[in-house]
């Protein structure tokens, strides 16, 4: 019983041209002298080589390993020796070169040890997926997405879709596989059913492949539905097939798993069957050789890495008849600039048409907005509008018209009566938009960094300003306090005021010193050290202050000794003779003062000292009357000095 087939919009009916390559069964293309295996035959990160030049490798031996999650390992397609790991031209529309492992084959085709997982039905699904991953299986329908990544989805899957549509003209690789190896496809499907446990399994195939349909139906179990769909390009596009078979649309930018579907090409299911049940990694594929330039068109089983030249020779291609060499079909294939590029996991066809068969594109005419392209578009886009916007570089409009939902199937270009290469405009526009987005991201990043820097500089500036303001404020406050004190001093008896201050100070000292005699000792030690340093420097400088400093040092040493011997006494002594101590300190300080750098500074210092001395004199009036004369003498001396310094600096 046939399952329901939904309709899809658009589509075209190009001449099928499948007959030419179906005249003979699958042949083995043979072992070429050299295989060139690109490290990237799949979508994702290129594999990492495990071999070095000179290594001998066996058929099926892993020669490169996964590099990250979305990646696939590589295996030697036959036995031989690694002779180079270098950049070689690869099958790419831009004629790029890429790193490849080059193997000179030895012709013996000796297998490495193969370990089948025959008990897969009792294994954990994750084990099976890991085996599929290690077998290097990537989607063989065209995109080359690593199958293990697809199968490891955590989304609920209710439908497994197998793609046997092969809607692209000329190509018959899937068709012949379905005809000749239907049993292997079913074996692969059984493993997938075990892995995914889908509610339904739908194998889509176009109605132009009756032999394949019959072969599949003959071996299909009841729970695998062979769904025959009308022949229309591009029904075999993943999204289109899902829509055809389930009526569901994969959301824009999403994956089939988002609508509960996993879609795999039928050749991929065979690769899974071989990997699990035979222990064979993916080392070969079926490739169609077709086009009028081939004398012997057909399908060949070809080792991955086989140069296209080897296949051209195999199919007896008339080199002088080939107008262009296409990898893939006439709708989505790309031309090869180099005949030596290798066959990879996704190479389903080598098309070598003559000039008459596929003539060079005629010059494009003006778009008359006939809308035939819009009728052909399977994604319900408006190709003619996209064309105008592409030409005008209107990226916003392009996005608004869903340019990125274009699958580049080429149906619009195919049907355009004005021969406009529409798809090429879309490719260019997509690249431009991606570039612009990358540039915008970069610019945004730079902007953010610039703004962060500006903010940081501003913050520092503000902090500095705040500190300055705080200092200014503090200075102002001090000035005010001083003014108050001065005013008080001016109004009351200055001596009385001084006495009070001294009292306050001494009380404070007392309380601090009383706290700890250890502190006292430490202080004395510190002072002694400082005094000794001063003395030493004075001696070395030959200063006349040496005796005074010596005296201060001696005194301090004595005090320290006393303090250590009897802390309380020392404290008392220190308290009893503050004036003496102050003198000693002052003397030490004065002696240690470096030569003044400029007279103004000197004057300022002298003035300060004079002020201090006067203050002390005032204090002494009360606390140490016996020292009054000495203080007075000090003050007089300072006044003299100051006057001298002023005279010297020329300041009156």
């Amino acid at each position: 019983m046939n399952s329901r087939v939904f309709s899809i919009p658009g589509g075209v009916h190009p001449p099928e041209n499948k007959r030419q390559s179906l005249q003979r069964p699958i042949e083995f293309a043979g072992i070429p002298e050299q295989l060139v295996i690109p490290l990237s035959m799949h979508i994702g990160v290129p594999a990492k080589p495990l071999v070095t030049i000179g290594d001998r490798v066996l058929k099926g031996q892993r020669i490169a390993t996964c590099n990250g999650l979305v990646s696939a390992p590589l295996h030697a397609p036959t036995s031989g020796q690694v002779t180079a790991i270098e950049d070689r031209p690869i099958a790419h529309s831009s004629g790029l070169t890429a790193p490849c492992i080059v193997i000179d084959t030895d012709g013996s085709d000796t297998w490495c040890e193969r370990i089948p997982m025959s008990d897969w039905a009792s294994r954990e699904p994750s084990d099976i997926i890991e085996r599929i991953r290690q077998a290097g299986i990537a989607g063989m329908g065209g995109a080359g997405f690593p199958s293990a990544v697809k199968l490891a989805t955590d989304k609920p899957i209710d439908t497994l879709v197998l793609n046997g549509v092969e809607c692209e003209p000329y190509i018959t690789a899937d068709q012949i596989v379905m005809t000749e190896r239907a049993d292997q496809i079913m074996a692969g499907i059984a493993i997938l059913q075990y892995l995914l446990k889908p509610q339904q399994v739908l194998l889509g195939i176009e109605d132009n492949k009756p032999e394949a349909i019959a072969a599949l139906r003959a071996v299909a179990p009841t729970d695998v539905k062979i769904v025959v769909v009308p022949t229309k390009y591009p029904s075999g596009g993943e999204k289109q097939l899902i829509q055809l078979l389930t009526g569901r649309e994969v959301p824009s930018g999403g994956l089939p798993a988002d609508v509960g579907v996993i879609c795999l090409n039928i050749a991929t299911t065979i690769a899974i069957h071989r990997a699990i049940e035979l222990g064979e990694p993916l080392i070969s594929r079926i490739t169609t050789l077709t086009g009028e330039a081939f004398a012997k068109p057909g399908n060949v089983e070809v080792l991955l890495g086989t140069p296209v030249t080897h296949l051209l020779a195999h199919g007896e291609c008339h080199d002088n008849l080939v107008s262009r060499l296409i990898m893939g079909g006439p709708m989505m294939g790309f031309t090869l600039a180099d005949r030596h590029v290798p066959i990879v996991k996704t190479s389903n066809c080598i098309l070598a048409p003559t000039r008459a068969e596929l003539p060079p594109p005629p010059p494009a005419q003006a778009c008359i907005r006939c809308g035939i392209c819009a009728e052909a578009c399977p994604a319900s886009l408006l190709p003619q509008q996209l064309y105008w916007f592409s030409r005008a570089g209107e990226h916003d409009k392009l996005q608004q018209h869903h340019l990125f939902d274009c699958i580049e199937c080429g149906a619009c270009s195919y049907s355009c009566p004005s021969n406009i290469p529409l798809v090429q405009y879309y490719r260019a526009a997509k690249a431009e938009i991606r570039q612009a987005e990358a540039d915008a991201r970069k610019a945004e990043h730079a902007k953010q960094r610039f703004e962060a820097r500006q903010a940081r500089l501003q913050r520092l500036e503000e902090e500095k300003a705040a500190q300055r303001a705080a200092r200014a404020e503090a200075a102002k406050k001090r000035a005010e306090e001083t003014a108050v004190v001065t005013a008080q001093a001016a109004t009351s008896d200055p001596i009385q005021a001084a006495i009070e201050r001294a009292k306050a100070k001494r009380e404070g000292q007392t309380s601090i010193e009383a706290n700890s005699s250890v502190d006292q000792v430490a202080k004395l030690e510190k002072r002694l050290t400082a005094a000794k340093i001063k003395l030493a420097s004075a001696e070395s400088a030959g200063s006349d202050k040496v005796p005074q400093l010596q005296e201060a040092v001696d005194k301090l040493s004595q005090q320290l000794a006393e303090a250590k011997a009897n802390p309380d006494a020392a404290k008392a002594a220190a308290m009893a003779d503050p004036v003496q101590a102050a003198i000693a300190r002052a003397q030490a300080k004065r002696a240690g003062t470096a030569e003044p750098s400029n007279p103004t500074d000197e004057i300022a210092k002298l003035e300060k000292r004079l002020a201090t001395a006067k203050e002390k004199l005032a204090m002494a009036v009360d606390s140490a009357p016996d020292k009054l004369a000495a203080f007075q003498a000090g003050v007089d001396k300072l006044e003299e000095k100051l006057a001298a310094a002023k005279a010297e600096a020329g300041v009156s």
Partner: protein
Amino acid sequence: MALLNVTSPHAHGPLSTASVMQLVLLATLPGIAALVWVFGAGVLINLAIAALVALASEAAILSLRGRQVTFHLKDYSALVTAVLLAIALPPYTPWWVVAIGASFAIVVAKQLYGGLGYNPFNPAMAAYVILLISLPVQMTQWGAPYSAQPMGIADALASNVLGRVDALTSATPLDALKLGVGDPSAIFGRLGGYGWEWVNAAFLIGGLFLLARGIFTWHAPISMLLALATMAFVFPHESQGRVDSMLFHLFSGASMFGAFFIITDPVSSATTPRGKVIFGAAIGVLIYAIRHWGNYPDAVAFAVMLLNLAAPFIDQYTQPRTYGHGGVR
């Protein structure tokens, strides 16, 4: 042999702009034959003059613009414009009126806007409107149906080129109905307007041929005819029953010609499927409004030009739902 390096797709479909235009020309033949049958050979003289002037104008402008003249002439688009204009003009229009119209259509309405694909208005209709407004007398010289039947090419030449107006002119059925003049039997034929019914039927056949060949979709023409019929049914002329009114308007004047050959001009019409429905329906409504309540007997040209202006706007808001954008599961 050097390998060609081009991008996909490598295959190309059978359609070309020239083949599309040729099919359109082919499809006008039944209508032209009916015009000759009903009104005499005058339309053939119009066709010859319009084609000559249009091609010459196209070639002149193309060479002034430094374009490849033969490459662009071979797209047949100028010829199509000329044919559509010639069909729209009264069969016994003086030659210079036809020449002015054809050159205006190509030079002003098409090439000055940038040539094929860039013209906002349908060139044939723009020329028709210019002529109708500037030369109302010459533009309403329709012969009475069948009265000129014996008129051959020689008589037509004498009339159109030498200016000897021998043909009997009369009000068209649409005119007569509007003004309430003339013998009712000269207004109503079997289906629609007397004589005009066959012209319309012939254009309907040509149009269905193009529809079947996929040159355009059903959206615009069917919407236009449905809208016109609905309007005629809802607002019939006092002297007509509703169904008669519908048939009369569908098979009078330029209804079928407009529906299948004018509003389907891809360049100047809406391009989205829903847009085409709106575009066609609005033209149908406008045609009836102008015919029934306006001052002009027929209205296809005015209605088409008004909607030409609205086409980009309509397209903007009728974008089809792209795959994967909020579809029903």
